[in-house]
């Protein structure tokens, strides 16, 4: 069996959202990833975020490259179109798709091999172009489908399951993304649902390029005690910057924090990401502080998580290219074809 459809058995008292849908309505096919794979927790968090935001699944496009992570879009949002493209090239598919119709919500699901190695060029340019999408890196530091080779996000001090040393330093995707101009950059952990769900909601509500670098342990190839991407290691070394809470448009922020302990990031659609500060005084709208904090925590052997950087006022690619509000794929022949009359002048100019 290569494709397993989930049976649709709804419990009569399942909670519904504004659209009258239950969480089950946001599910996908049964996952064929390993039991305990962090990626499945991320899929569950995406389902939760979409449910809570009452997103219309059919207005979402799920895009991916190749690898374990890139299989994941099949396991959530059955009513969305999906595109499992070629290795490392999801960003270009997303760019074309988003320019054709900017009204859909674009979720790109990638992994550390797909993004930090074969696809790093497209990742860089997609961030730089401010494409309005949420880019998930399901980061496990390893090549799962080909049986456990190191990836470029694996830490220098980490050893492989077979005891091999990692010879090269890790690429830090959030640092890169901030430097490149991404306007929403967060890191989280697949095992921290309370932090992850609000961050996904924030990223999806943000206009512009949102990166979610999510440490997602590979239970089969990178969860041993000499790995720095294992469940145990991340739980021990996770330094959460803040406890995020997503506040939808129009909902009052319940201020349970002392003044000075929380920060709010206003998002494009009017909703807010409220951050209870756990760590030092942290302004997530300041690029330089953000990069400094990431680098310092790395130096100290910690994995900094939370919303690292956000610029709610950034322009996105559609605005930069000055594209019509009516989606390009909805323009009719009458709107597109200059017709015979315009050809006369063109012909005359070429004589």
């Amino acid at each position, binding site marked *: 069996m*290569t*494709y397993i459809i989930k049976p649709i058995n709804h419990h009569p008292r399942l909670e519904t959202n504004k659209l009258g849908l239950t969480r089950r309505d946001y599910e996908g096919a049964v996952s064929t990833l390993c039991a305990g794979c962090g990626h499945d927790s991320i899929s569950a968090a995406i389902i939760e975020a979409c449910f809570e935001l009452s997103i*219309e699944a*059919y*207005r979402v*496009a799920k*895009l991916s490259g190749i690898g374990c992570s890139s299989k994941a*879009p*099949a396991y959530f949002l*059955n*009513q*969305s*179109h*999906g*595109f*499992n*493209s*070629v290795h490392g*090239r999801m*960003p*270009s*598919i*997303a*760019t*074309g*798709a*988003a*320019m*054709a*119709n900017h*009204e*859909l919500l674009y979720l790109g699901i990638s992994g550390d091999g797909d993004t930090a190695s074969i696809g790093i*060029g*497209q990742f*860089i*340019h997609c961030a730089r*172009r401010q494409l309005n999408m949420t880019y998930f890196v399901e980061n496990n530091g390893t090549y799962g489908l080909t049986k456990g080779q190191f990836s470029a996000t694996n830490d220098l001090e980490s050893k492989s399951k077979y005891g091999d040393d990692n010879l090269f330093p890790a690429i830090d995707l959030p640092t890169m993304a901030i430097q490149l101009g991404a306007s929403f950059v967060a890191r989280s952990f697949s095992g921290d649902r309370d932090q992850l769900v609000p961050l996904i909601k924030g990223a999806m509500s943000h206009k512009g390029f949102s990166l979610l670098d999510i440490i997602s342990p590979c239970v089969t190839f990178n969860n041993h005690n000499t790995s720095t991407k294992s469940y145990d290691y991340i739980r021990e070394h996770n330094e959460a910057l803040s406890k995020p809470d997503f506040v939808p448009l129009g909902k009052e922020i319940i201020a349970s924090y002392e003044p000075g302990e929380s920060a709010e990031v206003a998002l494009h659609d009017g909703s807010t990401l409220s951050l209870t500060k756990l760590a030092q005084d942290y302004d997530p709208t300041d690029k330089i502080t953000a990069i400094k904090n990431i680098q310092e925590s790395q130096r100290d052997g910690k994995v900094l998580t939370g919303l690292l950087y956000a610029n709610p006022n950034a322009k996105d690619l559609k605005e930069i*290219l*000055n*594209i*019509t*509000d009516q989606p*390009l*794929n909805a*323009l009719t*022949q009458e*709107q*597109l*074809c*200059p*017709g*015979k009359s*315009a*050809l006369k002048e*063109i*012909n005359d100019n*070429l*004589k």
Partner: protein
Amino acid sequence: MTKISSVNDFVIKFANVNGSGSASANQMFAKGVFRSGIPVSPKNIFPSNIQGLPTWFEVRVNEKGYLGRREGIDISVAMNPQSYGDDIKELKSGGYLIYDSSWKRDFGRKDINVLGIPLTELCVNEFSNPKQRLLFKNLGYVGVLASIFGMDKDIYIDLINEQFKGKEKLIEPNVKALGIGYSYAEKNFKNLCDIKINKSNKTDGLILTSGNDAAGLGCVYGGATFCAWYPITPSTSLAESYSDYSEKLRKEIGTDKNKFAFIQAEDELAAIGMTIGANWNGARGFTATSGPGISLMSEFIGLAYFAEVPSVIFDVQRGGPSTGMPTRTQQSDLLACAYASHGDTKHVLLIPSDPKECFDFSVKAFDLADRLQTPVIVLSDLDLGMNDWSTKEFDWDDSKKYDRGKVLSKEDLEGMEKFGRYLDVDGDGIPYRTYPGTHPDKGAYFTRGTSHDEYARYTENGEKNAEVLSRLLKKYQTASELVPSPIFNQDKSTSSIGIIYFGSTDCSMQETLDQLDEESLNVDAMRLRAFPFNLEVWEFIEDHDLLFIVEQNRDGQMRTLIMAEGGIIPDKLVSILCFDGQPITAAYIKNKINAHLSGVPAKIA
């Protein structure tokens, strides 16, 4: 002293230094001839360099409308001492040499007519700005040519006025530069040149433009709203043409927003990926590239083939292999395009032969890509793409409707019991597709490059995968019925000898056919315009005992395609091949045909 004497029929070659501003003056010369009513075919023979290396510009002037390159130079405008040696050698006996005689020189040939004009001296005397002194030498020799050919000088004054519209300050010095050359020639070269240009009307209904310009405009007319590309000679000007025309023709009234997206990608992989993404989402998108780009795009082309996503790719071919000769022409990407990507893949190719057809086939490419849900590659080449051709005016039928193919609307889905993305409902191998975001609970599917069943679900069932591959072959058969038919030189085949050719070879072939006709050699000719081949192609091949296949590549790639696709016995297929990077000439083709027929090996031209 012999002097070549002719009216409205000659070849002139300009030798310049790259980056000296000569190209626009040379182009202006050609346009002036065109405006005198005589068809011209200017060809820019340029180095892959920005400044300093030798560059040439060849213009064939021919009242009969033969636009192919012709060997032998009648007049050489030698403005680059670096290349004097070669330039003199090429000049026909009795030909004319125009050079800058500020530095006098003996060219060692007694059989040519040397017309020296001290252009540098004249320009130094007339202009004070050093840049102008250099630049205006170019217009100076245009003035000389206007005089010795007996042309109407006002044609060039009009052209200067048009070219510098909006920059009026530049008009006066340009007109002055033209006048310097013109007056000098009137005074010193009177009756020295027996080559003349007499006004004619043979350019009525024609325009002077390049294939890339035409294709870019065709994409605007064909409804393309998306272009992603990566700069590569000789395709760059195609993407730029689309952008320029879109800026003029595709602004939303009131908001001044763009009804198009134009993205310079980070590489060809991204360019094709974006193109596929846009088409997947229902916009008409294209990319333009050349051979190296096709190599890079191949993985994605296979995805679009297998996942059945429309996409339009222009390959403006240049000299290969590898980086090859980026500024020379060839038709050597046929096989790379026809079977691009790993696994069993075959693609639709359209092969235009002149700028008018570049325009028409651009429009056609989008209709075919949408109808067939597959990549369509338009194969142009450097000669066709970058050089200006005297071609038929663009035309558009306002009653024409775009064919968006089998796309299900929300209403269509509403009434359907089940939707299977890859179900062959109509038996033509073409399934139905949906755009993302169409219907709340119907029509969603997962596009993938992995093996899949009719419902787009991943499968490792070999039979299911084989079924999909077989259906794609059926679609390929359907494609052969939809692509443009070949063009024949006569309505019915009357000879046992046939000639097969395609693309930019057309202009030289028309001349060859007329020459063979004058020699009373009856041949049938077929110009291929697309791949896969349709029934008419196979019938023509069947009907002839001997077939010459004329190609601008080394390996006879079209011949290979014909043999492979039709199981044709190689014996009756004779290759005529030109792959030196220069456009093929009529004389070359004719010599090869005659040599084969007489059993004597042809002299290498």
